[in-house]
């Protein structure tokens, strides 16, 4: 957050290493779901809910007799994929629209500003439900809605950063040299806002994870039965008496993963000497 002080920043802090390790593990689970949690979706409705510690089910099972541990590991995929797509997607919108609005100003800037105002004032739940209803419910529909909902802040962020860069002498020199505006925007300004973009991307991943889980919790995200931490947490609430781990494990995983991404993002933004943009 602060400007880099000269001393003591060379070392990678322990939290960053731990965060990276946790995320690596989650990423492996997401990529190699079939190997790590091959039986995640295997049901045993005769077994039903059992508590933790049962042989073969360290964390017990859910209502359908599915193993909580395997299900939770399998949930890593939807915990990473969606948030990553949300962060990247909204940042792409933010990057192009924000850069254009920030550099060219005028009507595009005005429209981008109103677009952001409108989206920020729109109730998120309304948009999520309406789009889900029009297109059908599903994980990726929710992801798409979140991209739209996340984009205004990214537009503002990039726009602000571009506006900060534009009057700098090296950009003015490029203008005097007669370099095309599009090239100035994406060849000359872009490399300098990459630190902000990257740091914000990570923070958005964490935020999107929480948002997706929240929508799953409200029944708007993943389809029933799919391995997803938010969904598991919601479904697991009914089972608190029989197997509290069904809710606790995914809940802890959400918090841990989001924290790890956030810590890594903070560390990275420190590293990239990100200017603090408080507004």
């Amino acid at each position: 957050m602060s400007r880099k002080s000269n001393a003591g920043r060379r070392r990678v802090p322990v939290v960053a290493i731990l965060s990276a390790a946790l995320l690596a593990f989650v990423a492996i689970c997401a990529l190699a779901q079939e190997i790590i949690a091959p039986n995640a979706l295997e049901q045993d409705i005769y077994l039903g809910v059992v508590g933790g510690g049962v042989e073969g089910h360290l964390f017990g099972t859910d209502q359908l007799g599915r193993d909580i541990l395997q299900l939770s590991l399998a949930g890593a995929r939807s915990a990473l994929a969606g948030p990553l797509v949300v962060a990247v997607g909204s940042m792409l919108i933010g990057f192009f629209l924000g850069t254009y609005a920030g550099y060219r100003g005028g009507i595009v800037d005005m429209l981008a500003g109103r677009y952001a105002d409108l989206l920020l004032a729109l109730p998120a739940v309304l948009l999520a439900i309406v789009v889900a209803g029009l297109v059908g419910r599903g994980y990726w529909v929710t992801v798409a809605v979140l991209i739209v909902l996340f984009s205004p802040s990214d537009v503002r962020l990039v726009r602000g950063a571009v506006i900060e860069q534009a009057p700098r002498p090296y950009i003015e020199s490029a203008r005097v040299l007669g370099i095309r505006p599009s090239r100035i925007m994406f060849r000359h300004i872009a490399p300098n806002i990459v630190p902000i973009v990257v740091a914000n991307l990570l923070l958005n991943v964490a935020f999107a994870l929480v948002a997706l889980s929240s929508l799953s919790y409200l029944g708007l995200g993943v389809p029933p039965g799919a391995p997803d931490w938010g969904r598991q947490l919601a479904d697991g609430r009914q089972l608190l008496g029989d197997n509290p781990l069904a809710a606790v494990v995914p809940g802890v995983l959400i918090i841990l993963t989001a924290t790890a991404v956030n810590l890594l993002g903070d560390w990275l933004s420190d590293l990239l000497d990100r200017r603090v943009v408080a507004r």
Partner: protein
Amino acid sequence: MTTSTAAERASLLAVRDLRVMSAAGAVVAGLDLTVAPGETVAIVGESGSGKSMTVKALTGLLPEGVHATGRMDLPARDPGHPGRSDGQDGLSSRNSTGRRPGLEIDLAAPGGAWRDVRGGRIALLLQDPFTSLSPVHRCGEQIGWAISGSGRDERVARLLAEVGLPAEVAGKYPFQLSGGMRQRVAIAAGLAADPELLIADEPTTALDVTTQHEVLELIARLQRERDMGLILITHDLRLARSRADRVMVMYAGRLIEEGSTARVLDAPAHPYTARLAACDPPLTHRLTVLPTIPGSVPRPWSVGAECAFAERCAFAIDACRTAEPSLAEVADGHRAACVRPETAVLPVPAASADALALRPEATDEAGTPEKAAVPAAAPSVEPDRGAASPLLLTVEGLAKRFPGSAVPALDGVDLEIAPGEAVAVVGESGSGKTTLARCVVGLERADAGRITFLGSATGARRVQIVFQDPYSALNPGLTVGTSLAEALRAAGRPKSEVGELLELVGLPAAYARRRPRALSGGERQRVAIARALAPRADLLVCDESVSALDVSVQAQVLNLLADLRRRLGLTLLFITHDLAVARQIADRVYVMHHGRVVETGPVDSVLGAPAHEYTQRLLASIPAADQAD
């Protein structure tokens, strides 16, 4: 300048073996310092010399991760030492605190004692009056913070009067005041706790030249009235010469020479001091080639067991490279850290001259003042102004007012530049000179008036610009090579010319792979010039292009520009606030004031015999002018 006996009186402050360490290494490597009441000690050095860290260490304000060692003694002082002329009030406030006890401070010890030092014993005045006051507090309030007890408002009013400000300034916010007024407010705030010693860190660098003069006069008066010690941190030798009793020269974290101002600056015993003094462009005449010091100041911690200046010194011998020379007395009170102090006064041998300045006519004359205003040999002869040859640039009746601003930035400016000519526009901040430059290169659109190139208002403007700040001149996200390639690409020239461009400005072609942050300020400014040359511009606009550079580097860049003019037939429009620089670079000069051109003509006549009152005032404000008087 108070009394010549000041140094003999009991010192206010005595520092022994001050060292400042950062994570990278020593920033200040051992320094002793004493200041007597009423005495002015100037600490002189270029950027990276460690002078700012020294004063931060003396006030306990080192940034995080940096710490100091050493001892600082503040002897006990009687309350009744000579006060200000309106001493009544000062006495009463001092009586309340009584005799100030002696303080011995271990600079390595954490925290604690600084509360007794700062304010009442030592006050620190910073360079930039625009940032050193809180923007959201009224000036009176800010001054009053250091005053306890009743009668605060009266004290504030008296302090304001003392620094020559009307009482209503107390109710104003800093942004409502000019730079000079802000620095006066800052001085008043610094004096609020009646310090014995004022440390002023480049107190006038951010100010206009006329204001500079007033502020320095004010400080001198206050010092006299209060019998206050003053440590003046500056990079400006002229300023040190005009204001200091004693001078300490720092280089790469080391004190290399100290002594009375007259001795150190008139008869330097260290080659660096001598070279530095020579680099300062004279105001009174033009040098064909400015003396320079090759290379740049090394990082303090990268210097091994050797003389830190050895690498750049024309007279270095083996002994300079095997051990670090210690300060040795060369005359009474004059000490220097050089094994060959006698060489300092010698002219620089040819071999050591800056590679770019390496031209026959420069070799033996460098460092020797030349009285001829424009040598006949110089190819940049003033063009025949009566001839029909078309003017390169014509500016007619240019006017511009920024929205929300009460006064116009440009108010009917006329300007002409013939091909091959070098024209300087001088003026203080707010004079409109930068707006003029920006209009010429097309970064701003004027409200009224015409700008024509070679008689045509349209068509390709082969005009480029070099800005002031070397640190933001280059795109930090691109390598030097890419930046130049981009410029070439826009001009429709091949990328392969990057190497040539770099060599043109005296940099190795290998620099193309470097990132801007790996370059020194001078090198960056050279790359910026190379970039401006990429489209083979006819007119190069230099907007304060050397103002932010150290004096030795400034001389290098000025030499480079003069050289490019000769070689490429480049036309220069040089915007500067520094009359000495204008004198060195320009054929003709325009003096701007409040958006108007108040005087114009050949540089010699305008600077030598100014006709306009404002030009006269400008010239009178320059420290060297004091010296000349």
